[in-house]
């Protein structure tokens, strides 16, 4: 099982000093192809950290969110290239395999990406993009929106009980 050291996190902080766009990102691995199974495994592990299972609801991968993200990657070459760079970066920081990293180390690495990485550099931008897409897919599933407290889509039921909460007599009289 891989691990992530405090020294590595310090190096990650230094990453923020270098530009992402148009430049080579510190600690970024060479731009080699990433196997589809590596891509899928790393992405699944990452989104399951962003949206893990708990006592009330399923994890992202249990709802097929990783598969939807892979579909989105397959349909967009630019997106695919960027996300693959992000996934390679994750694996590199993890000593080879993010999915094999111990849970506390995964948490530490993602916390750094979320809170300290600059959003215009690879680690921060990758985190923000995957989070945005993952929550979009997750909370547009029935299990996802039910977990947030929504009971049904807006139609065909709506909320007709609100019609019974008519304005008070005082409110109507004041206005009429």
């Amino acid at each position: 099982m891989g691990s992530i050291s405090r020294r590595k996190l310090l190096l990650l902080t230094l990453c923020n000093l270098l530009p992402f766009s148009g430049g080579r990102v510190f600690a970024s691995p060479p731009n080699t192809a990433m196997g589809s199974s590596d891509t899928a495994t790393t992405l699944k592990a990452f989104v399951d950290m962003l949206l893990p299972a708990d006592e009330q609801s399923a994890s992202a991968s249990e709802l097929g969110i990783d598969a939807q993200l892979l579909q989105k990657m397959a349909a967009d070459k630019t997106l695919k290239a960027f996300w693959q760079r992000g996934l390679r970066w994750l694996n590199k920081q993890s000593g080879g395999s993010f999915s094999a990293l111990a849970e506390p180390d995964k948490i530490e690495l993602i916390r750094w990406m979320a809170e300290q990485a600059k959003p215009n550099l690879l680690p921060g931008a990758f985190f923000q993009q995957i989070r945005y897409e993952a929550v979009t897919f997750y909370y547009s599933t029935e299990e996802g929106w039910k977990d947030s407290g929504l009971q049904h889509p807006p139609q065909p039921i709506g909320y007709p009980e609100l019609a019974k909460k008519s304005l008070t007599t005082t409110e109507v009289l004041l206005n009429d």
Partner: protein
Amino acid sequence: MTDYDAVIIGAGAGGGTCAYALTQQGLKVLLLEAGPRFSPSRDYPLNQEDWETQSFPEKPLSQGQYSFAPMQKLEPRWKHLHSWSKNRGNYVLGEHRTPSGKGYHHVRGVGGSTLRFTGEAHRFNQHSMQMASRFGVSADWPIDYPILEPFYTKAEKLIGVAGIKKVPGRPRNGNSLLPPHPFSATSRLLKKGANKLGLHWLPNSRAALSQPYDGRLSCNYCNNCNRGCPRGDKGSVDVTFIRKAEQTGLLEIRTECQVQRLESDQNNRITAVLYIDKQNNEHNVSAPLIILAAGAIETPRLLLNSASRASPQGLANDSGMVGKNFMETLSWNTSALVTDKIDSFKGLPSDGICWDYNNPDSIPGVFGGCRFSSSTAEVDLVGPVSYAQRIIPGWGQQLKRDMREKFGKVITIGAIGESLPNQHSFIDLDLEKKDQWGNPLARIHSFLPEMELNRLDFMALKCREILDAAGIQEIVEEYGSYDLFSSTHIFGTCRMGDAPETSVVNAYGQSHRWKNLFICDASTFPSSGGGESPSLTIEALALRTCHWININKSKF
């Protein structure tokens, strides 16, 4: 049906109303629409699992093309007017104001932008129609409120408007209204805040049925008017005016037809409308009456693209006013987290409104008023996806816990204000960008002068003040016109007036020169009003125009 009494260009609020009124007079009408038809039951999938990720549907040709001229530089002194959200930070990272998405949010189709509108059915404030003579800004309307009043009443009856009789600045004769809708939890809280400040929070006038009416169902408060109404209770033009016009058998609608130009003769008449259908075939159609109702961007574009030897500056542009006086939607929204779980995703969008600052002299230091209304649905905070994207930060177990705890706790107050015309805001032709038939696109020039920014500043501060008085926890998102051009209501580019030297059409929407050409959309508005939504006024003006046409039909 080939022998038409009238050709109408555009099937939105103005064109749809004209189609109704003219067919009621027994006239045979051809309605040319650039966009498609939408089917409420098929096209608005609010019953599906992923409903929230589907905004109002786009179909081929349902969006117009236009371009933007560069916009003004942002200034540090207005940094408190930046658009931002808790999750995403500032929305505009560059140095200049920029369009928000497509910038001009509209729909081309049978029903036009009423298909996706919220459905506020506002009468114009009678005090906002003489901005030039009273305050030296903008222009006076050539008609006053009492002239328009009976046409407002007629439009309200046709649509089915729910609301209250006594709205400041808008006296009415008789009652054409359905009972007002109940306040949602959002509006009850905003009412509490407004009342604490001594302001009045009233039921809004809404083109949404509070009870079954005219064969249509009543609203069931799903809060998603802006995604299209599958029940048909929202008073969009397709289920009201156009439905009734089609029932006469006198209306023919041709969709996905792109009007290229209007042709004219030596006798100051429009002789033909040239258009291309969806199979790319060219057509030439004529009628005694031509009504142009394509909106405040496409109407001036078509007139400018119809320049000829007889009208080298563009048709109906002898005054040089076509495209000038562009007025946009000056708006602000502040969203905040509240303490109690109030299910703010339920209800009717914009169900409550405050008109206290709607009079044109009611905001200190500026001319032109504004209104405040509940706008949780208009900023699309009605589902968990938008919460997770924009409002609730974080990841992991904490994100899930926060989503459970906070979903349904965000309320939004919005403000829309007067947009005064200025010399830097106008529509012209973009000679470098053309549509597939080679016609130049309309180009939007938008500039917010000092008075607009001061009005916007007042709107933003008052939104925060009302929320604070309502007892919110924290502000989580703000969104406004300072750094983002985001317009649904646009006006003024073919101004109406009595003087041919300073206006495009007269008080009946008739071109000063081309006597069988009428314009029936918000391009004719001399001023924008203090935040009123324009559809009901467009419809009332169109009814008045058609009433005048009926009286004077022997002249056509």
